[in-house]
């Protein structure tokens, strides 16, 4: 992949060569060489922060294994699940970022492509239907409850086939729908892609042999690395045990590291795409499509490419999601999932890799945090003090004379609403608030902080 340095003018060669090759301390926007400008992490501070973040995550996840001084609740099994889901969604969000943030094409159809990838992986990598087969390869009643359908089996192929295949099939379908998508622009495109999601949901209803029961779904492929269909996996990811004879890890920890490696890989690919020739062409189309075409960037071809790359990411993420989640059902890939990704981009900061990842963590973990806080608050009900008063004000068990907006019973319908429903309200309000007050999202907040310290103690 060509980098910025490959096609710089020859006359600048000398200055670039004489300039410092290493990243600079401090001053974020002070660049003294082209190498520096093209660097992924231009300053030592950024390198250090990223390294520190990686180290923290690794240690926190390993905490259960041997670092006993790290509190178990930090990334114990209860937290690892949501965090791993966030990692998978991060891959999909990076893909949508390439389409929405870099190419400037608004798509609400990301869930459809994720579903495509998920079902490709299920068909190729799903089990052959011997032991522990569930909903696949066994007869089940279709949605009308009338007909008995024979479920289709997966082929049981190993991960190195079904994972790339999931991405490629999704990319292919992205290319197939792109003739309709590249012609329309702006809001029209958003609406067309909404149509895709509903058509995808209906395909799930149409083909229950493949999709499984609409509500409960079907069997998933396993994350284990196998050479072919042999019994014992080469690298086991889905069972507790030693990894490479080095360290004993639980299943959740293995899955996390396995998927986190994919996230790092795809982050690296996305970052390199943005600073390559292709990435610059896509950005030119985003900034002004007419001007881009005047400069010789073929608009439709690059839009199609953007669609294909974004769908590839979505397909990969869908396949990983299916196999991690352990349940695939068409209903998972509805419009709300697409809106999730748009919200991730807007809350994180569209067009930036760091913002996308921040947004994913924020959007995916917020509901869990709210639920945890509510549970902690409920424990305070028995005590005295300020927190207890807050808990009494907010929480209610729904009995007579006991008012409050949040119901402690998660299943009771009607007012007061459960935490689950309040999460949606908080989520929707957050989207609105972020768009109004911080259009650049979390990344914009980081920029503000950085710019404040850049000139400190002066104001600019």
């Amino acid at each position: 992949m060509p980098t910025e340095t490959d096609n710089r003018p020859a006359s600048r060669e000398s200055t670039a060569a004489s300039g410092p090759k290493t990243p600079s301390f401090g001053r974020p926007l002070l660049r003294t060489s082209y190498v520096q400008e093209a660097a992924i992490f231009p300053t030592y501070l950024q390198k250090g922060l990223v390294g520190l973040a990686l180290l923290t995550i690794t240690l926190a996840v390993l905490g259960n294994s041997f670092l006993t001084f790290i509190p178990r609740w930090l990334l114990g099994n209860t937290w690892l699940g949501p965090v791993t889901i966030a990692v998978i969604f991060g891959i999909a969000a990076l893909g949508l970022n390439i389409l929405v943030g870099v190419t400037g094409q608004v798509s609400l159809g990301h869930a459809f492509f994720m579903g495509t990838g998920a079902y490709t992986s299920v068909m190729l990598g799903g089990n052959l239907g011997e032991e522990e087969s569930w909903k696949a390869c066994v007869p089940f009643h279709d949605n009308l409850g009338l007909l008995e359908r024979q479920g289709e089996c997966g082929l049981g192929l190993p991960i190195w086939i079904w994972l790339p295949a999931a991405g490629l099939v999704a990319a292919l379908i992205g290319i197939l729908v792109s003739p309709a998508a590249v012609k329309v622009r702006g809001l029209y495109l958003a609406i067309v892609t909404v149509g895709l999601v509903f058509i995808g949901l209906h395909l799930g209803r149409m083909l229950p042999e493949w999709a499984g029961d609409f509500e409960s779904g079907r069997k998933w492929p396993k994350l284990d690395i196998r050479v072919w269909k042999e019994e014992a996996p080469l690298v086991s990811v889905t069972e507790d045990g030693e990894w490479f004879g080095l360290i004993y890890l639980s299943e959740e920890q293995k899955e996390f590291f396995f998927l986190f490696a994919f996230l790092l890989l795809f982050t690296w690919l996305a970052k390199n795409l943005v600073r390559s020739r292709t990435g610059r062409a896509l950005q030119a189309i985003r900034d002004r499509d007419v001007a881009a075409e005047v400069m010789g960037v073929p608009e439709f071809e690059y839009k199609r490419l953007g669609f294909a790359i974004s769908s590839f990411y979505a397909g990969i993420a869908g396949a990983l999601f299916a196999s991690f989640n352990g349940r695939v059902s068409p209903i998972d890939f509805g419009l709300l999932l697409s809106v999730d990704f748009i919200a991730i981009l807007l809350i994180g900061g569209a067009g930036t890799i760091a913002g996308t990842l921040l947004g994913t963590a924020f959007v995916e973990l917020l509901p869990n945090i709210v639920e945890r806080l509510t549970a902690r608050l409920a424990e305070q009900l028995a005590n005295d003090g300020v927190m207890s008063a807050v808990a009494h004000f907010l929480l209610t068990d729904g009995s007579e004379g006991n008012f409050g907006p949040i119901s402690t019973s998660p299943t009771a319908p009607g007012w007061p609403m459960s935490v689950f429903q309040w999460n949606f309200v908080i989520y929707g309000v957050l989207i609105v608030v972020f768009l109004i007050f911080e259009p650049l999202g979390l990344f914009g907040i980081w920029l503000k902080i950085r710019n404040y310290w850049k000139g400190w103690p002066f104001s600019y």
Partner: protein
Amino acid sequence: MITFVQTLSKAIALGSIYGILALSFVIIFKGTQVLNFAAGALSMAGALFLSILVVDGGFPFLPFANPLAPDPGETAGVALWLVHVAMALIIAAIVGLVIERVAIRPMIGQPLFAMAVITLGLEIAIRPFNLDATALGGRSIGVPWGNESWIIADAIIPKSYVAAVIAAALSFAAVFYFFRSRFGVAMRAVAFDQEAAMAQGINVGRVFAIAWALGAALAALAAIFFAMAPWPPSGSVSAEIHPVWVFRVLPVIILGGLDSVVGAIYGGLLIAFFEIFAGQYLSQWTNILGPGYSTIVPYIVMLAVLLVKPYGLFGTAEIRRV
């Protein structure tokens, strides 16, 4: 033949409802350049307001009740019911005004997409309240004619269908009249160019407010007529009618064009014809097409049309030269 007439009446009625809802989208888009994804939550909230007013006789947690409400267990007469509809529409319009003031007004000048996503956020934020209100089962909206129908030459035509057509005709007449009025001309000017309109002394903020009030009221009206007896057989607002049906209107406004009032009529009727006739005459192949296949027909029609005409049948084509 009887099947055909009944199907036709159903298609026209559904087309009218789609038309009203599309009109809500068009007015909001013309006035504020916002594609209102929150129409689903707003419309269901409007129908719920009617249910609360006419069946419960007043809002909970408020110290006063609705003085006009019929006695509990009784159904309001047609005139009284229409008064309640008007009240529900006014409340919906007030909600629209609040949304415009709080969430849309600060976003003037931002990209169209950011505004559209704001409405998506509103949809997500309002929807739980709607679903919560209907969590214990559907809520009746107290339609005076219930599930009655007329029999014209052996064809059964529910009264609700006729009511929907009348409502659509009235709203379209009102909107056409509105666009001839002073405010309507101002809105058309704002739709054409916000800054130029402002330079001519038009109060753009007021146009925004009017557009959202009208749009929210029209969305509520559409939901009220969609919650009547033959559509959901129980004739009540429930979680079933909410999440998806408003998104079926997106093909309508794509076909009609986001900014065309006439297009809303034609688009609504066209999509409803395809949907209802496909649902009626292809039903023997349900096994292959999958249950509920008719709800997908609008999107397929939309994709087919967009391949030929990227700006819809009546939308303003953006002239571009490269």
